[in-house]
């Protein structure tokens, strides 16, 4: 990866590379540029994952005319595919550099595709098509399952970490901050409105990176919840979020009904 990044920066093909840098023994998100070639000695792949696409969004918004490289795993690549579709990034201004996840990480994530389309680091390991943790919850009786989720949602301290860390949460206005809908100064938040609203908003967005669950200080299995969302989106719309540049994201399909202005005014 190091050689490729050096090459891209040297040729000017990219203005910067967003990856991880080892600093004080901790891997941290960083923008490598050719102005500081010595930083590249601390470039790291590792297994600790950060929302690098979210960093890319920040940097690309500041420098929309420049092209940036970014380290991507399978999930990050799915994220990029959706971010292009949602017009948050321009595909011709992003150069992804792939990393295939090791088996341990793929299993911990129950990732269905733990590798991007091309990779320079790691070896391809087979994806996991059925999530055991989802199967376990689905194996519960309905009332048992309901109380399971209610108990989980009651642990929420409303830190908004799941949203803040999410590389696919790019809305400027968030329904979870609508004061008519979610009361301020109250924890746990409305159960299950808060969590199920977020789940609905993950339709066609969630690329199953699991950063939300890793950021949750209350250990709520939100990733499992969004895995179910992904499964429903697949079953109902035949749409696998982030898999292909083709096809409309389900929430962008208007359907057969067309509204006339006169209907709206009624």
């Amino acid at each position: 990866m190091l050689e490729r990044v050096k090459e891209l920066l040297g040729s000017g093909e990219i203005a910067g590379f967003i990856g991880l840098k080892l600093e004080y023994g901790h891997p941290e998100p960083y923008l490598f540029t050719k102005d500081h070639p010595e930083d590249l000695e601390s470039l790291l792949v590792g297994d600790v994952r950060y929302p690098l696409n979210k960093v890319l969004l920040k940097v690309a918004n500041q420098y929309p005319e420049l092209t940036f490289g970014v380290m991507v795993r399978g999930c990050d690549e799915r994220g990029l595919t959706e971010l292009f579709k949602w017009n948050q990034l321009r595909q011709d201004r992003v150069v992804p550099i792939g990393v295939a996840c090791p088996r341990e990480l793929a299993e911990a994530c129950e990732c269905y595709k733990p590798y991007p389309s091309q990779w320079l680091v790691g070896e391809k390991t087979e994806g996991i098509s059925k999530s055991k943790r989802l199967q376990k919850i689905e194996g519960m009786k309905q009332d048992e399952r309901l109380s399971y989720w209610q108990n989980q949602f009651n642990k929420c301290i409303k830190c908004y970490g799941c949203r803040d860390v999410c590389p696919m949460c790019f809305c400027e206005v968030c329904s979870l901050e609508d004061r008519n809908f979610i009361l301020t100064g109250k924890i746990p938040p409305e159960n299950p409105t808060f969590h199920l609203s977020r789940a609905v908003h993950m339709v066609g967005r969630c690329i199953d990176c699991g950063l939300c669950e890793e950021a949750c200080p209350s250990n709520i299995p939100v990733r499992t919840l969004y895995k179910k969302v992904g499964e429903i989106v697949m079953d109902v719309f035949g749409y696998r979020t982030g898999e292909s540049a083709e096809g409309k994201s389900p929430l962008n399909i208007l359907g057969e009904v067309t509204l006339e202005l006169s209907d709206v005014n009624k």
Partner: protein
Amino acid sequence: MEYKTVLTTCGYCGCGCGLYLEVLDGELVGTMPCKTDPVSQGGLCIKGWNLHEFVNNSDRLTQPLMKKEGQFREATWDEALDHVASRLKEIKEKNGPNSIAFLASAKCTNEENYLLQKLARAVVGTNNIDHCARL
């Protein structure tokens, strides 16, 4: 063009969660939890997640305020500290050192809190020292 993260400790409470402040071209633009921090292990509360917001907030006090004729007015650090020192001295002489209490802060470092208790015990001569978490 520069984007970097600065590893630091949350200043809001005594838990000491590890986080990164995101800096884009010298401007503070965000907070991200440090996933390898042994204390917080990648989690933060809502205050921690928004730590970057108070730094450049226009409501933030940047100078000491002293009440004069019922109104708060900006003062220099020398003016404010001289006033505090002379009043503490007066109170100590009149009512004894135990008429004074010191309240340390969870937002400060261990070293700063150490210095405050040292000031209380060795300079003023009182064991009346507590911290903000019990206010």
